[in-house]
């Protein structure tokens, strides 16, 4: 029973982290029509920056995560303003730029902080026992923080003016501009927000597993998986597909091993793309 609950919790933690990252990715894609392959690197950078603030500067963990989010968010805005904005018409160049960004960021992380076996200090270290089941506090708190953030973002997009503006730009950029919405500003904000979310995800994950410069790649693939299964343009769908993938990722490896469950996950995504390209919840393409 205990193993079962722990596995479920693991699944929820994974799910919430995946959704945080996927949300940012999907946001950039809907608002800017750009497939930001460098998004995984934002996540990785978030973890590394968080480590830096926490370890090198000795900030308490929650502050380190917050600062990391701020830094990355500003970086995201910078990227949109000075780089992506000029490239958005051209798929090839945007792709190249994103890929160049990945390489540069990975190197920067390697050079400044260094390779393996670094961990972000936990927000709440230690174990706790709830209802007779032992689980690590940091996983719980990671889950809680992630869920809180997700609800906040959901609220932002659904209920606030800014969120409405973002949805307008996502639906029809030109029409939104004609309504007086500064599409570039919205794009910059979307970029910043998504980078910040990825950074938090990185910081949270960094306390659970150790850092390495390639964590971004795997997370990118996960984010794309979620978006494919959910379908472009569906926020609610992301939550559902995040839960599915997170739980599968926690449960399946117990039976068929890590790599095997990856094959299953990818195979499923390919199936969806071939059979139902608009995803489970998306609109018709």
């Amino acid at each position, binding site marked *: 029973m205990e193993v079962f609950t722990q596995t479920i919790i693991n699944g929820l933690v994974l799910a919430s982290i995946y959704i945080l990252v996927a949300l940012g990715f999907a946001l950039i894609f809907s608002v800017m029509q750009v497939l930001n392959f460098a998004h995984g690197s934002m996540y990785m950078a978030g973890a590394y920056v968080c480590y830096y603030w926490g370890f090198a500067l000795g900030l308490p963990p929650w502050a380190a995560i917050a600062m990391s989010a701020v830094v990355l968010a500003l970086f995201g805005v910078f990227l949109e303003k000075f780089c992506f904005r000029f490239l958005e018409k051209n798929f090839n*160049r945007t792709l190249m730029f994103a*890929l160049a960004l990945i390489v540069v960021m990975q190197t*920067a992380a390697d050079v400044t902080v260094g390779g393996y076996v670094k961990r972000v200090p936990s927000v709440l270290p230690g174990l706790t026992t709830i209802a007779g089941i032992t689980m690590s506090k940091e996983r719980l708190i990671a889950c809680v923080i992630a869920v809180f953030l997700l609800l906040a973002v959901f609220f932002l997009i659904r209920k606030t003016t800014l969120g409405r503006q973002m949805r307008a730009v996502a639906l029809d950029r030109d029409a939104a501009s004609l309504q007086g919405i500064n599409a570039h500003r919205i794009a910059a904000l979307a970029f910043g927000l998504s980078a910040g979310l990825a950074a938090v995800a990185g910081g949270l994950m960094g306390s659970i597993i150790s850092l390495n410069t390639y964590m971004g*790649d795997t997370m990118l*693939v996960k984010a794309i998986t979620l978006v494919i299964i959910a379908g472009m343009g569906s926020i609610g769908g992301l939550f559902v597909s995040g839960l599915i993938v997170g739980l599968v990722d926690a449960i399946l490896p117990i039976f068929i091993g890590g790599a095997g469950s990856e*094959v299953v996950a*990818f195979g499923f995504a390919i199936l969806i*793309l*071939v059979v139902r*390209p608009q995803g489970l919840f998306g609109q018709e393409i």
Partner: protein
Amino acid sequence: MTEKHEEPKKKPIRKYGALGVVVALLFLVPLLPTNNPYLMHVCILILTYVMATSSLRTIYISGQASVGHAAFMGIGGYTSALLSMRLGWTPWITILLGAVGATLVAVVTGYLFSRLRAIYFSMVTLFFGVAIEALMRSWVSLTGGRSGLVGFPGMGVLNIPGVGTINFAASKVPYYYLLLFLALLTLLILYRIERSRTGMNWMAIAQSPLVASSIGISETKFRVLAFAVGCFFAGLAGSAYAHYNGVISSSSFSLMPSIYLVIYMLLGGMGHFAGPIIGVIVLVAIPELFRSLQEYAPFVFGGIMLLVIFLMPQGLAGLFDSLRPWFARVARRGIR
């Protein structure tokens, strides 16, 4: 973006002369006094990547932006390694079989994916690539899992009547010539196909599948054809390199290597046949040659890319287009 169908009638000597000189020089590289195993290794690496990247460009020409090309190199490599190791067949045959294996997979997946447009095609090829890599990692009994395969034969000893024996195990030089031969063959075949009506049909479906279908060009057939041809040479590159390397593991064929192939191609410029060649040379040779600054190589890499992205949208090969009038003027002056 495409090369013009009619080109000014140049004397064959002029057109092929420069090319012939370059090819001859390539054959003479191992005879250089500065030659050493490391240089040979870098050259072999470049030749392999040239094959892979040029064949990727062939796929891109038909309008399909594949981001999983490295996986097909892996399929070729593993097929060849396994056939030579488990069944004892000679690598000279298994290398071809590796390419064939990659092609078979490509035909099936190419057909499945041929209905998908643009971004969705890219995504599904990305997933296919990582799925194959995960498959390689998980099927331990077949592929050795994460640690890969070791101990499959190299190209062995070749007895050429009248010339002597070539021992591939003795040095890297024979491998260099093997890969040089394969690369030149690849480039020749890809170039001829591209300049033929098939290539034109590929460019047609890339520009407008609708118009193409109205003149009788079947989009599905040509998309699958491009994908199959491209993956054949990727498989060939993967198998040849595997036997040279003696080791093959899944990490060489994951997402990042596929992405690097795309980068090499885009940097060199997709509009020119020679684009991938330039891209590979710039991005593979330079970091290797500046090994001392190893840590910062990716920064240089990233820097070059940023430069090209913002200043040269056509890639490095596009430079030639803008420089050609300049060259022509200089050449004319030189003749006097």
